[in-house]
């Protein structure tokens, strides 16, 4: 139960993951051996914790929150300090990650491989298939390819 994983317990994290995969409350309840009502209650608790984690991430990084997608675990925000849009992602594997939307430039960065591993784990958890073309892209482009789909138009 840490801020990094949205204060979710392992069981709540499991329920949250199943909901993100478009599983119905009845399906999740059947799989975990609990009633649909129990899952419904868990949703409320999970939503509260995920929202709290996002709000604290925004506060820590001085971000202005625009939208929060509690189901997919993505927050859209703006960084007044850098005057650029920001995406914050939450996943079981990577926890909370802040992504600043600007050029980045992976060619001069030593952490390219580390970023790529994080993004591959993010894609896998979100059920996003990465093809060879994706693997050739620098992580800065791959990030927007994976997380950009959760942005509002």
């Amino acid at each position, binding site marked *: 139960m840490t801020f990094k994983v949205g204060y979710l317990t392992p069981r709540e994290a499991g329920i949250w993951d199943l909901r993100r995969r478009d599983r119905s409350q009845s399906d999740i309840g059947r799989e975990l051996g609990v009633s649909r009502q129990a899952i419904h209650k868990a949703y409320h608790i999970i939503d509260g914790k995920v929202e709290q984690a996002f709000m604290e991430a925004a506060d820590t990084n001085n971000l202005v929150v625009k939208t929060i997608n509690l189901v997919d675990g993505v927050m*859209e925000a703006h*960084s007044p*300090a*850098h005057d*650029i*849009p920001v*995406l914050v992602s939450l996943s079981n594997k990577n926890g909370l*990650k*802040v*992504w*600043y*939307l*600007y*050029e*980045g*430039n*992976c060619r001069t*960065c*030593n*952490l390219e491989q*580390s*970023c790529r591993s*994080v993004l591959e784990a993010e894609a896998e958890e979100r*059920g996003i298939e990465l093809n060879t073309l994706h693997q050739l892209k620098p*992580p*800065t*482009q791959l*990030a*927007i390819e994976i*997380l*950009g789909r959760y*942005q*509002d*138009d």
Partner: protein
Amino acid sequence: MIKCIVNACPFAPGAVKPASMAVPRTSGLAVWKRLVNRKSTFLVLSFVSLMLLYGYSYPSRHYPGTPFMYEESYFLKMSLYTYVSGMLGFYIKKYKRRN
């Protein structure tokens, strides 16, 4: 809204990125970790178990003139078949779980 932006970076503009730690890719531990995984362990175990099975059952099953299944590479082939069928089962299970 911000669809025109095609890049995202975990570091804010101008932030000093920490230097990466050099881990030699060919270090002994790294090679060992790459070699020892679930698939290779399964292959080795199936090979060893079938070899033992072959070795222990050979005298009781082998009659002169009837080669039965005991050809030259019986246990090698069987271990490969076991491995392949095991892996097929694994991937089918993974595919089903995903869909």
